[in-house]
């Protein structure tokens, strides 16, 4: 059994922007830090592929900086449990590893929110972020007709990325009202950087049809999506497509923080001004504390890294920046709030839990999530309710069920490490 035990002063989980920034801040002063990442690359979902070919200047800066920071980079390392109050258990391709920490920074990011509607499980239907990731890995979209639907800034970013790879983006259907986005535009005037980014993006997306107050109600096709039916609440029409990228913004990955005992507030990890959670010596930064995007994540990550390594003055100097980004995060939240009509797009025969093939009709006859889970297997599959649990929260108002180890599926052998190590 190739089990290993490692020890660090500061362990950072997740190598997206927040984790990279935290690792730099924590290790540049000479502290022994490790950055753990489940994927084989660093950069997280948002900077996927950047490590191989830099296209984004921020990504280039932070990835290069972390490489020089002295932090130990452990990619392919999937944290599966908090096996003692000061150690975590992680799985690597060749076995499990137990890692002891003095300070822990959780930068676990966010995932896309999917709302089930008829046809959402057809091949060819992806999340905008997921499709973008596939394309970066070489999935061919050149000449393909793509409809992008749902909500959030990710739709535009995905459209941009897909277009660069030769896709024909036939429509961007944003569920929120145009007036909401216009208000966000005004808020943006306070952020010159974002205005410039926005203007550049707008220029690149010139000629791509964009509609607001529009959402998908059905994806059609026998073996693959061919047509998507959309509505603006009055009229319903169809668009032909080869791919449908549909997602409803992001949900925070709070499962690991919950495993370490961190308290939540409104579904996000509760942190103090040092980014410390309700558990002493456990910090959290980035999307799990509020969906705020890259810049908020970078600042929060640095604050967490400085605070965890005792560099409080450096951390404090970033407080005002963080406040600015948090205001922006709140504006984003308001702009892309889901409209009530979306609670009605799930029909009775829609597959609600795709791991276990459970229809919405079966799920909705129950009073709460645990009852539905026990009686229908909804949320009992390989994703452990990550997808349907988040949807049930929106559509049925159900609280998500408890988190138990392993946080991610893990080999039985990995879970026996504790015994081997002692």
């Amino acid at each position, binding site marked *: 059994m190739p089990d290993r035990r490692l020890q660090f002063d500061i362990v950072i989980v997740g190598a997206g922007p927040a984790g990279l920034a935290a690792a730099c801040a924590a290790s540049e002063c000479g502290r022994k830090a490790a950055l753990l990442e489940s994927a084989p690359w660093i950069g997280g979902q948002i900077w996927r592929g950047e490590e191989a070919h830099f296209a984004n200047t921020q990504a280039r800066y932070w990835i290069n900086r972390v490489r020089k920071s002295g932090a130990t980079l452990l990619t392919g390392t999937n944290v599966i449990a908090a096996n003692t109050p000061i150690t975590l258990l992680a799985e690597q391709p060749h076995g499990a590893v137990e890692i002891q920490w003095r300070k822990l920074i959780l930068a676990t990011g966010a995932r896309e929110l999917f709302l089930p509607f008829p046809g959402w499980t057809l091949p060819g239907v992806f999340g905008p972020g997921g499709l973008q990731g596939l394309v970066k890995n070489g999935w061919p979209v050149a000449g393909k007709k793509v409809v992008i639907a749902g909500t959030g800034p990710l739709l535009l970013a995905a459209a941009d990325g897909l277009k660069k790879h030769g896709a024909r983006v036939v429509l961007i259907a944003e569920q929120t009202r145009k007036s909401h986005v216009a208000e966000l535009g005004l808020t943006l005037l306070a952020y010159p950087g974002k205005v410039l980014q926005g203007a550049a993006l707008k220029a690149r997306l010139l000629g791509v049809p964009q509609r607001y107050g529009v959402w998908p109600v059905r994806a059609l096709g026998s073996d693959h999506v061919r047509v998507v039916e959309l509505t603006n609440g009055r009229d319903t029409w169809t668009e032909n497509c080869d791919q449908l990228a549909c997602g409803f913004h992001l949900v925070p990955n709070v499962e690991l923080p919950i495993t370490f005992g961190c308290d939540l507030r409104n579904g996000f990890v509760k942190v103090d001004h040092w980014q410390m959670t309700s558990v002493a010596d456990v910090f959290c930064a980035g999307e799990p504390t509020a969906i705020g995007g890259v810049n908020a994540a970078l600042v929060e990550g640095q604050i967490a890294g400085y605070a965890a390594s005792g560099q409080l003055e450096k951390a404090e100097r970033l407080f005002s920046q963080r406040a600015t980004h948090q205001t922006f995060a709140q504006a984003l939240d308001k702009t892309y709030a889901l409209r009530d009509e979306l609670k009605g797009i799930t029909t009775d025969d829609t597959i609600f839990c795709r791991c276990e093939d459970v229809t919405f009709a079966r799920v909705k006859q129950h*009073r709460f999530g645990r009852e539905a889970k*026990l009686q229908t297997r909804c949320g009992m599959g390989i994703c452990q309710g990550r997808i349907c649990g988040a949807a049930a929260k929106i559509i049925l108002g159900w609280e998500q069920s408890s988190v138990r180890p392993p946080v991610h599926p893990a*080999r*039985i*052998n990995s879970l026996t490490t*504790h015994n081997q190590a002692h």
Partner: protein
Amino acid sequence: MSQKPDIIIVGAGIVGAACAMECARAGLRTLVLERECVGGGTTAAGMGHIVAMDDSEAQFALTRYSRNLWIQMRPQLPEEAEYDPCGTLWVAADDEEMTEVRRKQNFFEQRGVRVEMLDSDGVAKAEPQLRPGLSGGLLVPDDAVVYPPCAAKFFLDQARTLGAEIKMGVAATHLLPEGGVRLADGTHLSADRVINVAGPWSPELMPGVPVRKRKGHLVITDRAPGFVRHQIVELGYLKSAHSVSKDSVAFNVQPRKTQQVLVGSSRQFDAASTEVDHAILSRMLSRAGEYLPGLNDLVAIRTWTGHRPATPDKLPLIGPSLFSDRIWLATGHEGLGITTSLGTGRLLADLLLGQPTEIPSEPFSPSRYANGASHHE
């Protein structure tokens, strides 16, 4: 229910649901109160092994009686109850355990339970994933596996069809000696008799009930078609399941109809928390891996814990409580509540109606603890 119920059943785990079904079938006006959801407590945490057991004559009588009732009920069970007549394979690791296999074989054969003795090769053929070199085993082909929460739901639906009233999300906080219950919101509901079927929580409703929480862990894997075919249990299980004091683990795995493998088992007293205990979890998985080396490479997708309601003599409490003739018990089934739910329901209904029971009920009478003395082993 316009009329006052004859009985109020507190707790809709699988035992409460089976009691409701059998009492309603027997013509009793039955009201069921459940604070959360059907089968949400110990039932949800159980493996769902329907098994004939031979710890004592009384335990055997109740498990066989119940197992027969399960077999009779099988054609009516809905698909989601996942009844799978996979049988139990008791495996012996050494000669000492083979002696136990032979004792078990004699015990079951003398009492008409179908068994098949397997030698070392026979065990390997029956379960190719088992490590080579085991001494042998005993196959009990009429044992089975179910998915307990849906079986409990089916029993409760049957009870409703037979006229029982079910109140979900209603918590009884006090059982009243004059008959009836007080609810969390202060309401009184009266009935001739109240049945405490709250499993490990039964002492909270009635201090002094000789039931302790005995914690267990389970792990379920991703789909692994055909990995194992029977519920496989080590005979060392008896040594550990019998130990009333120490924490213990035993190799106990089962194939699910979903093609997943359910891995048990652990036993801990005085562990009230529902948190996963990594130390005992890894001991349990290591033990299972010793018997099934290939298990180590399967993927675990979920672990959970639960509490068994354990009595000092390992037999359930079925009948009037010592406290009041109007408060009855149907609790303390330890790890056998899924199997013995149906037998318990029948016994309870017969006792309530003053009818002769089909198996002796005395060994389960709460009156055996009348002197406060509990005969620990």
